[in-house]
């Protein structure tokens, strides 16, 4: 099994594209957009915060879709996508948590608080870390794929429920950026044109980066599998 030159070129092109987008996004975050009125310079981290959250959401979403597809088709490529999604999603949600803490320290005067949103991202991180533990703990590869798919789905159901709780319970101090909310407007950002531009540019950039990273991770896994198969073949011949 090998990849077509054309697809490799597409991947290479969007990899460079993602890199360029990332540089551009950083320039926008630091120079294009001005400091926020009430929060000052520290607010600049927010663009990465939300961008990486979108990345994590997309990656974990890919894992659920892949899990359902795997249980239906038993095609191992879906399992590969599932692992890729979890690993990339874990990376991004770590960035979300760290940037959030960096922002919370000057604004809320604490690194961490058990606000429902913070709680739910902590649960999300733990659930997917547990997913990796489950994979490490099951030896039979076929069973490992099946269990990982099942756990990916049930963990996502649990996370969805947590998100619903938060929407229904407006006792959060976390600023609400998108979607209708009955929370008081005091916490939300004053959105200027430049802030909106920068935000959407960052979201787009992080979405592209997520796709690129997942794609590369899938290819890496395929390479590992192929090496493993080759190793077995060589051992069998000896």
């Amino acid at each position, binding site marked *: 099994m090998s990849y077509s030159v054309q697809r490799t070129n597409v991947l290479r092109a969007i990899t460079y594209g993602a890199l360029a987008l990332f540089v551009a996004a950083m320039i926008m975050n630091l120079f294009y957009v001005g400091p926020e009125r009430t929060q000052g310079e520290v607010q600049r981290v927010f663009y990465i915060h939300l961008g990486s959250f979108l990345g994590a959401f997309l990656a974990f979403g890919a894992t659920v879709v892949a899990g359902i597809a795997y249980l239906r088709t038993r095609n191992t490529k879906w399992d590969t996508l599932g692992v890729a999604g979890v690993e990339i999603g874990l990376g991004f949600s770590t960035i979300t948590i760290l940037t959030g803490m960096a922002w919370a320290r000057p604004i809320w005067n604490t690194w961490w608080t058990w606000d429902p949103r913070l709680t739910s991202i902590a649960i999300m991180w733990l*659930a997917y870390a547990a997913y990796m533990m*489950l994979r490490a703990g099951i030896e039979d590869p076929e069973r490992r794929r099946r*269990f990982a798919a*099942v756990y990916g789905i*049930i*963990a996502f*159901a*649990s996370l969805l429920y*947590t998100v619903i709780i938060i929407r229904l319970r407006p006792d959060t101090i976390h600023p609400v950026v998108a979607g209708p909310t009955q929370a008081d407007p005091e916490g939300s950002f004053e959105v200027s044109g430049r802030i909106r531009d920068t935000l959407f540019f960052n979201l787009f950039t992080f979405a592209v980066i997520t796709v690129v990273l997942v794609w590369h991770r899938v290819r890496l896994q395929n390479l590992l599998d192929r090496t493993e198969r080759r190793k077995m073949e060589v051992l069998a011949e000896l």
Partner: protein
Amino acid sequence: MSASAEHTQSEAQVQAAASPRRRAMTPYLRTVGAIVWKDLRAEIRSRELINSMILFTLMTVLVFSLALELDADARQNIVAGVLWVTIVFAGILGLGRSLASEKDRGSLDALLLAPIARSALFFGKMIGNLLFVLVIAFVLLLLLTVLFNVTLFKPYLVLMVLLGSIGFTTVGTLLSSMTVHARARETLLPILLLPVVLPILISAVRASTGILDEMPSEDWMPWVQLLAIADVIFLVASYALFDFVVEE
């Protein structure tokens, strides 16, 4: 020897063995009932699981009361947390054993060999686990009422305990049927289970605290409803996913 002397009506029955009269699959509720009956019967005889769960519960409550030397007010605030943390950890103890013993003796294979719906097997094991957890919860309510001097036997609190236990044992039974195949199953089960049941735990603790503080019902009723919804979600998800867990 006696084995050869006494084969009576079997020969004739063998011929009927493949007759279409027999149903392809054993009725659902009969299967669930048979598994619950078997688990209870075995447990009543050995009392292995329930004894260790109750002892664990006693010790946990003791540790909590010693570690948090609380005055009356503080106790009132923390009792819901103690209740649920203890239910969860004692429950994990039971969940881990319930399927592990089937797996290690090979009797899980015997169950899978029978012409029964896989999900009936799930609900059978789940109801058995739920009954054990409810026994623990009852002991706990009694214990905390006495030791913390807080009246816990209130209708809505009992309802909360029931709803929370259903959600917890549902996910727990599904996940423990996966972790029995893992190398470090005792550590893997809590790692997998806790993040998934945390939303249930949060709702249960919030509602229980509200009920105990005698707050107006509109303050905690949404949590009860959310918990009921979560139970339904997890029951449906487990029903749909269990087949994939036990097949090979």
